[in-house]
């Protein structure tokens, strides 16, 4: 098991390293950052001044390793727009995004797992069809549009919840639904498929033959096994969801890291952009790593691979 964790950790670090290199060079390819700071019509002296201060005229590899070295110690540079350390900016905003991610995932799991189980217990029943309908429709609704429709109905027409901001718990209701529904179809499908497979297994027939109650079979024997792949999918989806929070946060003006990303992108704030891309990919890498470990822990057969 330790060997397995070590291997996975090494791979995760390598991926993180590559992603950081790609995102760094990507943003540098777009043009000379010195001109971006000094402005289109800047004189040669102005550009020279910017270069003296930030060192943009040095080879990109050197700049990258310098940035990486600083990033490793928590120094992500200064934001060009806010003129504050990027690490402080992000630390301020990350809480909201993580809270939103957790709420969204809880929403998705609470909706998807019961629906998936119910659908598998009675295939082709009304609830099976309903869950199929939800997942087909859910995958086709663009989340930004879904969010706007919810605002129109629940904030404007009914006046039940505030439309934007992040000051009270009420502000999180609609964003949670929008972010959570995104992960629901996949989790529901997997729960249903897993339950169908497990329910036809021999040991379930044995349990039935022994005369165990349907309830006990369902929860103690079937769901426990069917849920294993669902948990790792949920972890992976969590990584995706945090990356997708930029859309949800900008619709509802929730001041989280996603909103900060949108602000920094629309203002060409390169250091903040770079740091956020790095952090969101770290989240994804962390969650997939977690999923691998959880999987191996719950299913010893995987540890050999």
């Amino acid at each position, binding site marked *: 098991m330790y060997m397995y964790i070590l291997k996975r950790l090494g791979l995760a670090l390598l991926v993180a390293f590559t992603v950081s290199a790609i*995102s760094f060079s990507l943003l540098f390819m777009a043009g000379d950052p010195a001109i971006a700071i000094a402005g289109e019509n800047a004189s040669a002296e102005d550009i020279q001044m910017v270069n003296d201060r930030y060192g943009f005229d040095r080879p990109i590899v050197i700049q990258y390793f310098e940035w990486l070295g600083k990033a490793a110690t928590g120094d992500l540079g200064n934001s060009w727009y806010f003129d504050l350390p990027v690490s402080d900016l992000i630390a301020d905003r990350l809480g909201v995004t993580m809270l939103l991610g957790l709420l969204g995932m809880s929403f998705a799991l609470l909706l998807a797992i019961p629906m998936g189980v119910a659908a598998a217990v009675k295939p082709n029943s009304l609830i099976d069809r309903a869950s199929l309908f939800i997942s087909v429709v859910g995958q086709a609704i663009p989340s930004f549009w879904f969010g706007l429709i919810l605002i129109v109905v629940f904030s404007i027409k009914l006046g039940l919840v505030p439309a934007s901001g992040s000051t009270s718990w009420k502000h999180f209701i609609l964003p949670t639904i929008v972010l959570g529904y995104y992960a629901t179809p996949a989790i529901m499908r997997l729960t249903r498929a897993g339950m169908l497979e497990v329910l036809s297994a021999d040991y379930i027939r044995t349990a039935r033959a022994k005369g165990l109650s349907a309830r006990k079979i369902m929860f103690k024997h079937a769901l426990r096994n069917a849920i294993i792949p669902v948990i790792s999918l949920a972890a992976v989806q969590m990584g995706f969801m945090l990356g997708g929070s930029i859309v949800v946060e900008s619709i509802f003006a929730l001041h989280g890291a996603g909103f900060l990303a*949108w602000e920094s992108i629309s203002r060409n704030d390169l250091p903040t952009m770079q740091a956020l*891309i790095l952090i969101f*990919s770290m989240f994804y890498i962390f969650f997939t790593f977690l999923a691998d470990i959880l999987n191996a822990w719950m299913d010893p057969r995987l540890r050999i691979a």
Partner: protein
Amino acid sequence: MSDTSLTSASAKKPDAVSKKGKTPAHQLSPRAKMLRRALRHKGLLFGLFVMSIIVIVAIFAPLIATHDPYAQSLLARMKPPAFMGGTWEHPLGTDALGRDYLARLVYGARISLLIGLIAATISACIGTFMGVMAGYFGGRIDLLVTFFINVRLAMPVVLVALAVVALFGGSLYVVVSVLGLLLWDRFAVVMRAATMQVRKLEYVAAAQVLGASLPRVLFKDILPNVMNHLIVIFTLEMAHAIILEAALSFLGLGVQPPTPSWGLMISEGKEMLLFESWLITIPGVALFFLVLSINMLGDGIRDVTAPEGRN
């Protein structure tokens, strides 16, 4: 996410049951059987029907739209659609700049379809190449490709796409290229697995023994047998690219105004959210039906081409 059982709920029983007056299923060629399955698959037919309508509308946009999608009119701003008390002069009303909403909607279909098709084609080329290589050769190449897939998955798509569009400028080309270069991961994953399966089959070994060249084995023996997976992923990624383009344009960093993109229309309508919600409803519903039809088409093709995958 690669389960086939979901659609099985609506999928038909294998074609053993034949209706009166029709040729029994066992006398049909595999191709005819597939066609028969397709004609009985409601989801597939629905998807095909809706998508055909949208494609026809996009192709014949100049004939359908009675106005220029770019022509502004200060006198005809925010006219409601005909079904909400407006006139038939502007069947779907006008936007805040007085542009005919129907014209913008039908020309917008062109943008969505174009972006979806081109982006998915770019991704399909990259992903299929990587996946087939990894699946066929295995070993180090497989490790390398798997690593690339991991790296790609770790990059937050929306964030990276937004950043690139912001830095390189929001032209149609930039948006299409970014999406094409970002969405190849599923192609690679599925093609890799499918190739690995096919590669083990005896006829591939037979072709190799007969001295077939590598390109011949890849193109004549491997590729045709993983084609159905390729088509299914192509539809999924096309839908994905269309939604992403709309999201980027919605956030202001995709296709730029005054291009009639559905995402952009929703973004412009957002300003009027309080008063005129149809401005976001109309392009949103269009987007929803386009994506829904493509997804249903893809799911249907999967069911029809791989009946053994159903339970």
